[in-house]
């Protein structure tokens, strides 16, 4: 059993990257996921929630009857309900309310005085349902007592209890070190009695059913605070200027504190990439994806994909880029040196295939559904989705235009839009440091690049040399024999065919051919 718990806005953003990796076929077989964030209106969080829903809808039709190892949406992702533990039962909660500060004065004066010593009056009065605003000390207090009888913790602990062997349940947490929620949650849940040696998890004093990992995301971006002047600027939100100090203090804390993490990943970047305008919290906080989040998601994959029985080595591993450019060669993939090359090849193959799929599906596959089936001349379409039934009739039950099928493909389309937007957003242009995908070859403003105007776009979206095959080649690949099961729903088969063609296209055009041996993620096909 694998759990990913994203803490705060960064945890949600890493979750988004993780979802995209899983959608591309670079993920564990099964993954349960929930988010801890008091700021339920956080834009990043709502984007992640929406993404998960689309992922699950698409996967249900694609993977249920697909052959084992089919990469697209391979990871079975399940979420508890609610997906987000928002910590507080009621809205408009203040720290003072949470610790019953007013009553403490009469009930337990020394404790009241201690709270007054630890928190400023401003902190005690701050509304917490929009996050801890970069003040982990507040979060540490409120996250220390999760309600085990309510989801998502109830499901979590039920799964843990069901586990039998040591390390059966792998739990990975991710959060930022520089914000409020993440900075509070990561060390809080790293405390031994919180998860690792919680009575429901531990087998004995030294053994637990839980293998615990975490990723602390160090400061990696800046945002523009020019628009946040006046009284708002004086409030308790974090600013980019606070990051170095907060980070230093946090790292010192982690070093001194006896946390129960079996593996801890620290991910950061010194490029200070801007992710957009500042937003203190709630719906406005929706920052542009950053490759560091991808690196954090890769850390989660490294943790979740490692073989069973892997014990903490007590060693430190470090991975960094050479020079300023972040290319496919510089992404950190695994602490297992022997697996680095295979993982790198697999990741590139899967992401390029997924990007090809998303582009082709958005540009050609989904719009084709607007054409009546009888007017479509493509052989693959006729064979699979409008087959002959006798001499003069057609089997219309295979038509993916049927409403329930179309709904699935709409989910795939929407997921593809998100994936493409995410992948493209990693790119900052030809002069930018990230040299993975070429945004301008995929997106033109908010739309995909017109494949009829730019036939070669599909073959040139990688920031490396390619054979520059064009969209016609992709269409020809759709006509290749398929191994997809006939039991797949029409929608599943439709998307599956496009994925297969995309995979072949990527292999031919971008030379991302499979290498022998298993890289650890979902099996290659």
């Amino acid at each position, binding site marked *: 059993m694998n759990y990913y718990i994203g803490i705060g806005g960064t945890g949600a953003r890493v979750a988004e990257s993780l979802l995209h990796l899983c959608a591309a076929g670079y993920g564990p077989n099964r993954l349960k996921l929930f988010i801890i964030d008091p700021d339920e209106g956080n834009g990043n969080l709502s984007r992640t929630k929406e993404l998960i829903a689309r992922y699950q809808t698409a996967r249900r039709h694609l993977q249920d009857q697909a052959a084992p190892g089919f990469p697209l949406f391979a990871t079975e992702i399940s979420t508890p309900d609610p997906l987000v533990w928002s910590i507080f039962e009621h809205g408009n909660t203040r720290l003072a309310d949470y610790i019953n500060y007013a009553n403490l004065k009469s009930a337990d004066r020394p404790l009241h005085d201690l709270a007054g010593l630890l928190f400023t009056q401003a902190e005690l009065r701050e509304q917490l349902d929009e996050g801890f605003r970069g003040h982990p000390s507040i979060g540490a207090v409120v996250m220390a007592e999760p309600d085990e009888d309510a989801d998502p913790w109830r499901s979590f602990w039920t799964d843990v209890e069901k586990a039998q062997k040591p390390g059966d349940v792998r739990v990975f947490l991710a959060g930022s070190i520089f914000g409020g929620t993440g900075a509070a949650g990561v060390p809080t849940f790293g405390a031994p009695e919180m998860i690792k040696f919680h009575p429901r998890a531990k087998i004995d004093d030294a053994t637990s059913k839980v293998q615990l990992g975490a990723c602390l995301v160090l400061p990696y971006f800046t945002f523009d605070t020019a628009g946040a002047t006046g009284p708002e600027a004086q409030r308790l939100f974090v600013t980019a200027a606070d990051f170095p100090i907060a980070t230093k203090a946090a790292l010192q804390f982690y070093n001194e504190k006896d946390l129960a993490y079996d593996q801890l990943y620290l991910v950061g970047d010194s490029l200070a990439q801007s992710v957009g305008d500042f937003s203190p919290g709630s719906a406005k906080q929706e920052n542009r994806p950053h490759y560091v989040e991808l690196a954090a998601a890769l850390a989660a994959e490294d943790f979740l994909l490692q073989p069973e029985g892997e014990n903490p080595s007590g060693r430190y591993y470090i991975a960094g880029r050479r020079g300023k450019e972040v290319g496919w060669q510089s992404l950190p993939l695994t602490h297992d040196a022997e697996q680095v090359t295979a993982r790198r090849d697999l990741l590139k193959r899967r992401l390029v295939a997924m990007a090809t799929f998303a582009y082709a599906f958005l540009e050609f596959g989904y719009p084709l559904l607007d054409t009546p089936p*009888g*007017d479509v*001349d*493509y*052989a*693959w379409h*006729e064979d699979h989705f409008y087959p002959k039934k006798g001499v003069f009739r057609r089997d219309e039950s295979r038509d993916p235009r049927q409403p329930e099928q179309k709904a699935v493909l709409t989910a795939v389309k929407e997921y593809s839009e998100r994936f493409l937007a995410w992948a493209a957003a990693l790119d900052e242009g030809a002069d930018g440091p990230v040299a993975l995908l070429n945004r301008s070859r995929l997106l033109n403003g908010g739309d995909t690049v017109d494949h*009829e105007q730019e*036939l070669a776009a599909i073959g040139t979206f990688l920031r490396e040399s390619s054979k520059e095959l*064009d*969209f*016609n*080649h992709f*269409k*020809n690949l759709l*006509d290749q024999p398929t191994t997809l099961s006939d039991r797949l729903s029409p929608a599943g088969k439709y998307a599956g065919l496009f994925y297969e063609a995309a995979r072949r296209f990527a292999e031919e055009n971008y030379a991302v051919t499979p290498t022998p041996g298993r890289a650890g993620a979902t099996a290659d096909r």
Partner: protein
Amino acid sequence: MRSAPLNYLITFVLAGLLWVLTALILGGYLGNTVALTVAYVEDFVQTYRILVSVAAVLGLLLAFWWYYYGSRPTTVGELDRAGRFWTTLFIVGLALAVGVLVALLILFREESFTVGQYALFFGVFSLHTWLFFWISTLLMSPRTVQTIPWGR
């Protein structure tokens, strides 16, 4: 069956079989049954066979042309144009059948064939041209354009 060189080979064999049936066997039968006023039976049969062979070769070329066109990598991007091209080839096949029939009639203008025999000649030439093109492309068009001959 739709991929090269198999579709080319099968089409060639099909044309050969049809040629054996129409030029050799049917040609021999016609030599025995057609009433000829001035022509020698051998001349008639030979000319008939030459015309059937011409029709067969041209029909074969039409099919091969379509196979080549249909298997070009760029064709998938212009299926509407491919449809028009197929129609053009089909009409060319039809014109060939008529043309070869006219050639036969001119060469044997002194003969008086029956209506049934005229129909038979046209049927044979059609079998080698537009019908052959239609059947071949119906069954063995490259996958990219396999739906075109079926029409919509």
